[in-house]
């Protein structure tokens, strides 16, 4: 149903209805932002990348052939935008500094810090995966895309997607050691 709505909104926007595109953004931007938060680990960076994602999406809308769902297509753009962001030279903010600030701010800061560091280790481990595994993991778990959509995007079967997930989970468990248990 939602997919049908997305297609209708897209068609309406193509027909000249600007409000249809605004509604489309309102419906999808939280997921895109959450995905980029998980990928980057930084809400501010994620906000910037979200803006960039939509810019690129509007610019590339002509190449969207509607074989995939709009959300899937948007996820792919966000993912690529994040990878490009990683490759760009940028000023590094030590993660520990941010955590120290959180530690001072909240009463349960120690627990929050522990969870934040664990999440960051998991994020780094995911980013360290090979490209095919990394894309599959982020698409399924963080992009919340259905397996069939990921399979269509990658040009593989659903069984192959599940195999990739299993391999990726094995590598993550190995990389994180006993942390996963």
């Amino acid at each position, binding site marked *: 149903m939602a997919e049908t709505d997305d297609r209708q909104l897209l068609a309406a926007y193509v027909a000249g209805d600007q409000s249809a595109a605004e509604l489309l953004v309102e419906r999808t931007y939280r997921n895109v932002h959450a995905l980029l938060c998980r990928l980057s680990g930084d809400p501010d960076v994620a906000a910037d990348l979200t803006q960039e994602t939509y810019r690129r999406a509007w610019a590339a809308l002509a190449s969207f052939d509607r*074989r995939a769902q709009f959300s899937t297509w948007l996820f792919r753009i966000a993912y690529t935008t994040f990878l490009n962001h990683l490759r760009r030279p940028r000023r590094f903010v030590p993660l520990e500094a941010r955590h120290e600030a959180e530690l001072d701010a909240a009463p349960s800061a120690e627990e929050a810090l522990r969870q934040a560091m664990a999440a960051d280790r998991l994020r780094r481990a995911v980013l360290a995966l090979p490209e095919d595994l990394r894309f599959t993991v982020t698409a399924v778990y963080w992009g919340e895309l259905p397996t069939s959509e990921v399979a269509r995007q990658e040009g593989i079967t659903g069984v192959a997607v599940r195999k990739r997930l299993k391999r990726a989970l094995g590598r993550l468990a190995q990389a994180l050691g006993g942390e996963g248990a």
Partner: protein
Amino acid sequence: MSRPEREIARRLSETPVYAPPAGLLARLQAEIPSGLQAAEAEPFRGPTRRRPARWLAAAAVAFTVAGAGWLVWRVQAPPLLPETRVRPASAPADPAPVGGAEPQEPEVEAPVSAPPAARKPTPASPRQEPPPVQAEPAPGGVVGGAAAPPPPPEPAPQAAYEAAPLAEAAELPEKVEREAKSLESRELRRQDSAAAAPEPARAKAAALRRCPLVLVLSLPAAREAEAWLELDPASVARWRREGTEGWTDAALSAPAPLGDLPAARRVELRYELELLPDAPPDRSPGRLRWRYSPRGGGAAVEGSRALSCTT
């Protein structure tokens, strides 16, 4: 999926709240291009067909043709190497030719110090079929067992053994020591031949179990004494005589008569058997039989004893 993997999947599936910053939606909506940029796009395309990889099909056909050709060539061509045949384990079942059988295998090894008489072909006794293993001490002191020599450390794969009957050992009392010395050199040569033997022969020989056998007969004063071995063909693959001691009758012949024996004559026989791999370990490889007439007169006495390996 293991437990750590499940835990990782659970953590990945967690959906923490990432609230978009205020004003982000407005910024995104403000950046939507107005108008028909998208409308100018090229028409939507249908799903493209996946063409089957032609090179893959061609490679499959080529492989099939090449494989079939190779198979036909392999079936029709003669074997690359001559097949090495291993002598079937039938030595014990056949009547043993007296004086040493001619070996049928390439690595034939004649006994080093066998007496000349032992080399003469002599008709084999029907009773003297396959030679057996060790005789335990007979009750009443008729047959006694002796300590066994240590078994050869490694199997001799293709060494052909001389099928010597019990009767050929007329001159052995003087030569037992020489034979014992020659055993060592013979063993070395067997090992060499085993190393040079083809793989199947070595494998088969390695599967055989060695069974050294020491038989000690201690008979009272007797006339026309005879002794012989009966080997079980189901257990024994090959056998050979390693030496004898105490034979006084120089005219020992194939049936292995011991002749007239003085009192307390002690005769020692040393054999080595190779048992079949599937021979049950608790099954005796054969029996040692003897027969004699007491010198003082009376009915002939017959006895037998199951053989067992010395080790």
